[in-house]
């Protein structure tokens, strides 16, 4: 086999995908209540347009976009709005959310008639539909999809890339979607190409998902302007900049966007959501979540409504094991450990992991083994960044290029001294940002 394309740096991780990669996507019954945080997208959070006590239907708009980079929120179930208050949030402190008590009718408003031929739509219309459907990046970051479909003035998009890499261990959402919703994926890619004017579509898949590769290949091979590319299994292959480098040997400039090297990248789930939004006018009110862990009874991939509490989701997978455990929202490398199971699934939630914590020595002095800078996909020196953040030497910290860090976690994974390098760098970046605000 010829050598598969990849990037510099990175690490090889145990995959743990076997737990769920063959589990078909299951639809979960409606939860008794949902909690829909307002803050689910990069940019400004949408403004709520419902008040407590008001009945809503599934798919009805409950918050409207605010500002140029924002998104729309919809009620994910039909029922009554019971609160607009602070609720646990999976990616940080308690956050403002709308709580809806489900009425189990699951009635939805009329969907806008479907459009069979998206090539008749203008790019502006596509973007409007995507915005109205509240589609944001489902890979985790939550970047509003319509913004990505609107390349900045002066840049010409050559490639529309579907990111089917899913390099985080454990997660199998994109894998299942590629297998089960191949047609929609392709439709989504067509729409993205149409909206951005890309001349070629690429579906990038890591070589550990051969089933998905063959399935997608079988569908795509007739298409002249769409290719499937197999990539080497390496973390973080799915990071946007690394993916673009692997595919085209182009480096997105530091601080720049993929569009500056002629690319637009969308996650598999996002592409499918775009297809649904544009073709059938269906808003983004549910998503697929991998619920897994070595000690979970029934791990699987579940299609759940946005706002479903983790508690409900975990019970569907067989409940929590006893003893000391760690709950992670997202993948094990970049995911966030949870304090409570009351936090809900949001648009960016790709997985829910239950792990046994392994205690180890942490934050010993750096022995300068240099492993972190060999695995850093960005070419930073994480050990020094960590030290500078720890000693609050912000000028040096910035001078070492801290702002380029993608927080992939490779450095902390390999650190022999067990230093929490990513945490240090995150804290440092936050301090840097607040220092800039002060100035």
């Amino acid at each position, binding site marked *: 086999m010829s050598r598969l394309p990849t990037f*510099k740096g990175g*690490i090889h*991780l*145990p995959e743990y995908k076997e737990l769920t990669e063959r589990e078909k996507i299951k639809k979960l019954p409606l939860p008794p209540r949902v909690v829909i945080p307002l803050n689910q997208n990069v940019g400004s959070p949408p403004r709520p347009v419902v008040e407590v006590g008001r009945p809503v239907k599934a798919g009805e708009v409950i918050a409207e976009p605010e500002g140029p980079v924002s998104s729309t929120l919809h009620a994910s179930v039909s029922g009554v709005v019971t609160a607009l208050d602070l609720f646990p949030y999976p990616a940080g402190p308690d956050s403002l959310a709308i709580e809806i008590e489900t009425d189990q009718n699951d009635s939805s408003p009329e969907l806008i008639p479907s459009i069979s031929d998206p090539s008749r739509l203008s790019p502006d219309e596509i973007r409007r539909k995507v915005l109205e459907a509240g589609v944001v990046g489902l890979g985790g970051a939550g970047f509003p999809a319509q913004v990505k479909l609107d390349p900045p003035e002066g840049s010409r998009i050559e490639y529309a890339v579907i990111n089917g890499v899913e390099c985080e*261990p454990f997660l199998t959402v994109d894998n299942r979607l590629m297998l089960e919703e191949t047609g929609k994926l392709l439709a989504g890619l067509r729409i993205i190409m149409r909206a951005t004017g890309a001349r070629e579509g690429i579906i990038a898949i890591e070589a550990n998902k051969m089933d998905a590769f063959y399935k997608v290949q079988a569908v795509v091979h007739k298409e002249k302007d769409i290719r499937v590319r197999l990539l080497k299994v390496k973390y973080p292959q799915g990071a946007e*900049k690394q993916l673009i*480098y692997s595919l085209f040997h182009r*480096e*997105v*400039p*530091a601080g*720049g966007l993929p569009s500056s090297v002629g690319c637009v990248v969308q996650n598999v789930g996002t592409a499918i959501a775009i297809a649904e939004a544009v073709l059938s006018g269906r808003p983004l009110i549910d998503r697929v979540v991998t619920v897994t862990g070595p000690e979970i009874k029934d791990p699987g991939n579940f299609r759940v409504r946005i706002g479903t509490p983790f508690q409900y989701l975990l019970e569907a997978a067989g409940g929590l094991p006893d003893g000391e*455990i*760690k*709950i*992670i929202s997202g993948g*094990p*490398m*970049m*995911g*966030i*450990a*949870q*304090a409570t199971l009351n936090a809900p699934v949001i648009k960016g939630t790709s997985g829910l*992991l239950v792990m046994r*914590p*392994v205690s*180890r*020595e942490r934050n*010993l*002095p750096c*022995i*300068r*083994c*240099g*492993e972190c*800078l060999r695995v*850093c*996909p*960005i*070419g*930073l*020196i994480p*050990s020094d960044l960590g030290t500078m953040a720890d000693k609050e030497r912000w000028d040096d910290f910035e001078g*070492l*290029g801290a702002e*380029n860090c993608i*927080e992939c*976690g490779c450095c*902390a*994974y*390999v*650190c*022999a*001294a*067990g230093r*929490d390098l*990513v*945490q240090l760098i*995150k804290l440092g970046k936050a301090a840097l940002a607040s220092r800039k605000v002060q100035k």
Partner: protein
Amino acid sequence: MKGKKERLFKVTPAPQLHGGESIPRVMWTVMLALLPAFLASLYFFGWKAFQIEAVSVITAIFTEAVIQKLRGRPVTITDGSAAVTGLLLAFTLPMDVPIWLPAVGAAFGIGVGKHAFGGLGHNIFNPALIGRTFVMHSWLPFMTTWSPPRLAMYAQVDAVTYATPLGAAREAVISLVPSPDGIFSTMDMFWGSIGGCIGETSALALLLGGVFLLIRGYVRWQTPAAFIGTVVLLTWVLPVKEGAIALAPYHHLLGGGLFLGAFFMATDMVTTPVTGAGMLVFGLGCGLITSIVRLYGGFPEGVCYSILVMNAFTPLIDKFTRPRIFGT
């Protein structure tokens, strides 16, 4: 506050996975890599070599424990770093040193060379080499007297006139001149059946350990390759100084402490550059200084000094060999 106690989950910062690498694992792997050379030292120099090694390792560990206790820091002697320092120091001593000498060297190396700078990870210079240099220049006569290895077939040569291959060439002792027919055959040098410090004579044993570390990834190829390559090249092309006997590059390769230095000392993580390019520069510098000292300097061997001098250059090298940031 009242009622049933809620279940608390463990929360750790991302990433939630760890590769399992740890400081003890690194250090004890290096110890393992030193095992062949340790066995070789026992084989060629016998019981006395063991005594030296034991005293050195125990003193190193003891010194570290005492200092950490005094400073109120956690005592980390089980991580193996002090043991590695002690063993490496012992390897660089000749067999005939008095038994207190390795103890002084180890205490100085750990105390001044390592903990004065803040302990593991903070030291600038290789503590083992600091210890060696200290005893070398304190008690020069002990450090330049060589006994023939126990099993040498030419054991009739007495200790006083015995010398290392490099020393013999410098003093131009014709009877000891290394030559295929002379008493230092290339094979002897490769196996280790020659005069020298107890851990440095057996090129084979060191090579075994070195290759093991290379495979494990604790040693990068850049440093040993640049170091050894430069020495071989320079000793081949440069003329020797007046009165000395020219040695072939392979004598320089096998006859001194080059392998020990290149694989185990110049690759010490704490005191050498972190990037590949930096390691190349470091190795090059080591090779250059070693060759110059060996060919023109006042001492027959220069590996130790070359590494110490380059240790001082390490922060500077690190500063100028930073990797390129993606997208810049």
